[in-house]
């Protein structure tokens, strides 16, 4: 009996058409005699679909997958279901981050309270916890300092540009990364509730989804700021897309630049007459990773 991992590798080869005729027959023989093996192959096929969606295949594997597995509408329906479930799981994970009502914890006062209570906290908790807290604050300050002193850091600017290139907003990339939103905008700072999000440590990419109204704008400009109005980056030439029947602007951000902190994203729309219209602020809070 082969080890489970080897069996999965062999099933993978079978499904991608790497086996010769005799080897394929051996696999098919097992379907008949061993229903558990059939289940194993089904599971491997499902994983192949996940890998295909995640773009984890080599060029050869991708072609083989399309030739040997995407061979009929039923298979395409299965792939679309997998893609939809991945999207739903991400939205579910982000939606489960608890919202914090604005009236009880407006951003600016809360931050002041947090600062004034810092020493009280240090006194109350044990020393090791305080050290961890100071280190976390130091790390946050260092990250913000790194971003601002390089103004903007060339590699970050390039990465943001690449991530937000309009041609990348295809169906394949639409569901990549941890999704924050859709966020509702407001015209003044504290009029909206602030949603808090915990970005999974394993996520490298974050999508900020901003709800927009029905106005006809040719493009959008966005600037992400900390609660102290320190600008982390700005982007232009963003386009609106429709997701779940809602018009949104999607901004892709490397997860590494979003330290636990309060953020405001200011959005402008560019009209057909090239006039810039302020559309509002979108507040969110990162509470941990």
């Amino acid at each position: 009996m082969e080890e489970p991992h080897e069996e999965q590798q062999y099933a993978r080869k079978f499904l991608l058409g790497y086996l010769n005729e005799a080897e394929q027959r051996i696999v098919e023989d097992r379907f008949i005699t061993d229903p558990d093996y059939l289940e194993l192959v089904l599971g491997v096929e499902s994983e192949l679909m996940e890998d295909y969606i995640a773009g984890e295949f080599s060029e050869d594997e991708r072609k083989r997958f399309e030739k040997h597995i995407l061979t009929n509408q039923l298979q395409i329906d299965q792939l679309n279901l997998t893609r939809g479930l991945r999207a739903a799981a991400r939205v579910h994970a982000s939606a489960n981050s608890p919202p914090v009502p604005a009236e009880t914890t407006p951003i600016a006062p809360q931050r002041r309270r947090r600062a004034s209570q810092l020493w009280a906290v240090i006194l109350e908790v044990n020393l090791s916890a305080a050290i961890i807290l100071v280190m976390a604050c130091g790390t946050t300050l260092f990250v913000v300092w790194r971003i601002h002193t390089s103004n903007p850091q060339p590699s970050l600017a390039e990465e943001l540009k690449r991530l937000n290139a309009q041609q990348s907003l295809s169906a394949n990339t639409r569901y990549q990364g941890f999704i924050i939103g859709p966020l509702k905008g407001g015209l003044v700072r504290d009029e909206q509730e602030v949603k808090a999000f915990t970005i999974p440590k394993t996520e490298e990419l974050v999508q900020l989804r901003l709800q927009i109204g029905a106005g006809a704008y040719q493009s959008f400009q966005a600037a992400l700021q900390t609660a102290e109005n320190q600008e982390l980056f700005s982007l232009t030439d963003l386009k609106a897309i429709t997701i779940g029947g809602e018009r949104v602007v999607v901004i892709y951000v490397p997860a590494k630049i979003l330290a636990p902190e309060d953020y405001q994203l200011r959005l402008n729309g560019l009209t057909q007459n090239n006039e810039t219209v302020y559309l509002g602020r979108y507040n969110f809070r990162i509470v941990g990773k």
Partner: protein
Amino acid sequence: MADDEPLNHESFERLLEWLNPDRDKAWEKYQEIWERLIKIFTWRLGRRVEELAGEVIRRVEQKVPDLVKKYSGDPARYFYGVAYTMLREVTREEARFLEFQEESGVGGIIYPVDPEEVDVDELKLECLNYCLEQLSERDRKIILAYYQFDPKTKLEDRKQLATELGLSSSALWTRVSRTRSFLLKCVQSRLQESGRVH
């Protein structure tokens, strides 16, 4: 095809009875067998899959009176055995056909589906959200947790999920697989209701 009216209602009822005396369980089993037949033909041939799976069902349907008396064991295995025989028949036929094509200079016959068709449009996502709501809370949590993974740690994540649920990895997959089958049918049904049949 699995939802189509069978050619002979009486013999189909006998087949269901053979699968399980409980009508609901029999139908569930039938759907499971159907889906696996589709996969077996898809993996080997990639086309005519519903036609061939339908032919397997018809052949077994005719044998049910004998099977009830003589066959013991999981009925699914008998279906897969018939599918296996049919695979051999079809591959032999196609080998002859290919030989003829090569001799006559006729071109290839494989036309995989255009991957461009692979997309999730917004309507389908809305349907999926609706169908997720139809699941029990536990099944919904399980399937969403199953698909909330990091590609780099997927295997470990799923092993941990299985452990937390008190299931083996294969039992977790079986459960997810059943939920997927329900969701796929539910989404297709919603699409039909909305006039968006694909």
